[in-house]
């Protein structure tokens, strides 16, 4: 069933790319593939982190704020120490994200308050800290070293470095979830918290950790944001949370916890990013674009659904399941 879910999304993605390329062959030109990958990088990384949290039946709405805060931190660091090596700055950004994740995790695991409410609170908190810190300042490309800004141009076998990083994140998270005991326990916790507790799983710790990892990944996304866009103010990442959760859910991660994979979430992120990138290429009338985004999401889901039903019927030899 789960594999099917991902297949459906993959199919939708392939179809979309095929149609777009048919209309505008430029879509598969090296440059625009690179742009597409770079564009999907941030969303993918965030969707992976979010999936970990969602799998445990929680949610982290604060990711946009965390990413913004981390991006601004990296920028400020470069302003203060112009010659800072890129890895150090990157580490600092990730550290900022991790701290935010720890705050979320502690509040959720300790206070046993719905994660939605807690992270809504921290969404405003972190954003507020960002505002206060920035105090209206803006950090521009000129404030950051070229080596850092050029990260997107470094390629490995033709793939831009940030995309490679995103890929590694996906693979690592997927591998971990599948092959490690604590990874499997995340599913158990999200699927049936009671049963998980009874099986001796340290539920609080398993709820806590994904928030931290998600925070760290949001921090990483912030670093990549800074490198990619070069202009930073306190509003970076505003409203991102919805898209991130959507990418994960489109990719088959259940908001009710306990099911889904990070590969699916990554595919979801790729699909949403591709929709965004394909529309201008398809010369869709700009006034219609939003409507088309919505339509494409619905169609992808419909396709996915169709496939799932087909497979289920085949497996089951017909007949409904009902209960």
């Amino acid at each position: 069933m789960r594999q099917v879910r991902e297949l459906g999304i993959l199919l939708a993605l392939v179809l979309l790319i095929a149609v777009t390329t048919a209309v505008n062959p430029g879509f598969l030109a090296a440059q625009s593939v690179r742009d597409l990958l770079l564009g999907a990088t941030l969303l993918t990384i965030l969707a992976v982190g979010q999936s970990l949290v969602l799998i445990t039946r929680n949610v982290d709405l604060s990711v946009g704020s965390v990413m913004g805060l981390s991006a601004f931190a990296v920028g400020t660091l470069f302003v203060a120490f112009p010659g800072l090596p890129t890895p150090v700055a990157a580490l600092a950004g990730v550290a900022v994200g991790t701290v935010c994740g720890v705050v979320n995790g502690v509040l959720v695991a300790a206070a046993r308050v719905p994660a939605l409410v807690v992270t809504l609170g921290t969404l405003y908190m972190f954003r507020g800290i960002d505002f206060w810190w920035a105090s209206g300042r803006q950090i521009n490309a000129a404030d950051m070293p070229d080596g850092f800004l050029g990260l997107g141009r470094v390629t490995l076998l033709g793939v831009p470095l940030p995309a490679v990083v995103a890929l590694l994140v996906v693979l690592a998270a997927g591998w971990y979830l599948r092959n490690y005991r604590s990874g499997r326990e995340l599913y158990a916790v999200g699927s049936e918290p009671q049963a998980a507790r009874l099986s001796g799983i340290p539920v609080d710790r398993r709820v806590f950790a994904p928030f931290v990892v998600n925070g760290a990944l949001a921090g990483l996304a912030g670093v990549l944001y800074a490198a990619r866009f070069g202009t930073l103010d306190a509003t970076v990442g505003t409203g991102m949370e919805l898209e991130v959760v959507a990418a994960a859910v489109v990719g088959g991660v259940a908001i009710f916890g306990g099911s889904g994979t990070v590969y699916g979430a990554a595919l979801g992120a790729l699909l949403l990013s591709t929709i965004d990138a394909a529309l201008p290429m398809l010369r869709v009338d700009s006034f219609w674009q939003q409507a088309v985004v919505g339509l494409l999401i619905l169609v992808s889901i419909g396709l996915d659904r169709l496939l799932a039903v087909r497979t289920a019927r085949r497996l089951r030899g017909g007949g409904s399941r009902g209960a």
Partner: protein
Amino acid sequence: GGTTRGDDSGEGSGGGAQGEADPDAEIPEGLAISFLPKQLNNPYMTYANSGGQEAVEELAGEFKEVGPSEANASSQVSYINTLSQQGSDAIVIAANDPDAVCGALNQARQAGSVVVSYDSDTNPDCRDVFINQATAEEIARVQVEMVAEQIGGEGEIAFLSATPNATNQNTWLELMEEELAKDEYADIEVVDTVYGNDDDQKSFNEMQALLQSHPDLAGVVAPTTVGLAAAARYLSGSDYKGEVVLTGLGTPNQMQEYVEDGTVEEFALWDPKDMGYLAGYAAASLSAGRITGAEGETFEAGRLGDYEIGANGEVVLGPPTVFNADNIDEYDF
């Protein structure tokens, strides 16, 4: 509103003057001039582009308007790429981000397009000319004049701005404070600056708090179109209507109701249609080689007359227009 993002003119050598200008060059017919606003569905931008369309049609060019549905830099980049692929002669852009669009713009320029920025500038390195709607000094001066006159030269005033991070807003606020420091305004005191985030509800809340916290408040200046309309809407429905002066930057259509019902007497803004019109002429002149974007060059802009290019490749549209009950009906934006 279209007034929230920076027209900060960064450093750099100014409009990349390449080659020599030939003031007498013919403007060819059929120039493809594409307008790329910050965001498509923004009435302000739509109105500005209608000026651009007027200019392009006068010059027998091909007008085109494309853009993202949300004001962000990354989607502007893909439009720039598409336009340059299509071989557009000129790209007229209101940048959502001064730097993020630079790479794409420079690629387009290498491919033969000329680039004019309007409303909000890009980094000067990656465009030929910037059409500045008005200088910050002028904008600040006009607003201070209006409020001073309406409150009778003395009393407490407050500012209702957009977001605390909006660079252009902050520049205007600073310049207004400077202006108010002059002797002629000695009896006017600025008691508060609040931020409505260009959100209706938030602006309502902030106005309400301002009025509650400063019982002697005489006037409010809102240098943001969203904020001004929201503040006017709030005032017109509250007990303070007629007691507190409200002015700032706003569009005539939005403010018409409140000027008519007496909530607001006067407010100002540049004419965005003229700005688009001027940008259209500038783009055509660049494309034809009449100008290169170097300081001191002049060009002719149809019904607006002649303009001179200033430092950094900037062209200033002129002083803001003041709107009141007498002239508000003549505008439609």
